[in-house]
């Protein structure tokens, strides 16, 4: 098996395990964090803190390399502009996140746990991504 495929798979497993251990895969807990005015569960702030503490070190190293350890090109994002899709998209994502307590990663893990509601959410999310592709394809066609 190709090394990059194997590492992709293993990273998916580690990521999924992190979501399960941290409580992120449980929408009720996510909503407990987003509910500042109710009984507030601050746990998820620590999830992000723990992740970013490790990430800061890794991305500092990554930024100095031109090739990855497996010899792949480093595909680090280069954009720095703030545009309307970024702002409106992120605001819209937060609304969807707050409605059900699911963001994309936890939905996939809950789906793997056999939660039918996670299956429904994931199918709707994929449909949403398909709608994005259709809108953008149409927009590019009419622009050219």
């Amino acid at each position, binding site marked *: 098996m190709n090394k990059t*495929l*194997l590492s*992709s*798979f*293993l*990273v*998916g497993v580690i*990521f*999924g*395990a*992190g*979501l399960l251990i*941290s*409580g992120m895969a449980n*929408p*009720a*807990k996510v*909503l407990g964090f*987003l509910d*500042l005015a*109710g009984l*507030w569960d*601050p*746990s998820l702030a*620590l999830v992000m*803190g*723990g992740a*970013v*503490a*490790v990430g800061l070190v890794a991305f500092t190293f990554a*930024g100095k390399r031109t090739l*990855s350890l497996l010899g792949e090109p*480093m*595909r*680090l994002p280069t954009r720095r502009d*703030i545009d309307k899709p970024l*702002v409106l*998209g*992120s*605001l*819209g*994502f*937060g609304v*969807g996140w*707050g*409605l*059900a307590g699911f*963001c994309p*990663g936890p939905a*996939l*893990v*809950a789906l793997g*746990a056999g*939660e039918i509601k996670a299956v429904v959410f*994931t199918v*709707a999310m994929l449909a*949403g*991504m398909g709608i*994005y*592709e259709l809108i953008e394809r149409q927009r590019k066609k009419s622009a050219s």
Partner: protein
Amino acid sequence: MTIDWQAFTPWASLAGGALIGLAAAIFILLNGRIAGISGILGGVVNPQKGDIAWRVAFLAGMVVTPFLWLLFHSLPAIRIDADFPLLIVAGLLVGISTRYGAGCTSGHGVCGISRLSPRSLLATGAFMGSGFVTVFVIRHVLGV
């Protein structure tokens, strides 16, 4: 603000978060890629030749995590209170918005903040903010 001390899981959340950070770290250092779930899914919805297999491997890893987990331990609680219509609306919104916003909690919230990317700092502030407002409106204005 009242903290829900009973729901608060500082150590599990910190450890799970560190594991998520580790996954992102391994992915950028070995594969040279950003572990952003919405972006990885987006590339499966709109497949480009030669850029699919690693995405499927990563997503498969996430989905099988609960199965692997069950070999050692029972799964932690996953409680989904949203009903089916709400899950569909939330899923569509998350799908469209994360593609326009170029990322979600993983790509912006973990990887982007670790890179100190101004776009990701803004995106994370935006989706956390609108998530807080959404839950406030649902629970404390509409009282659902």
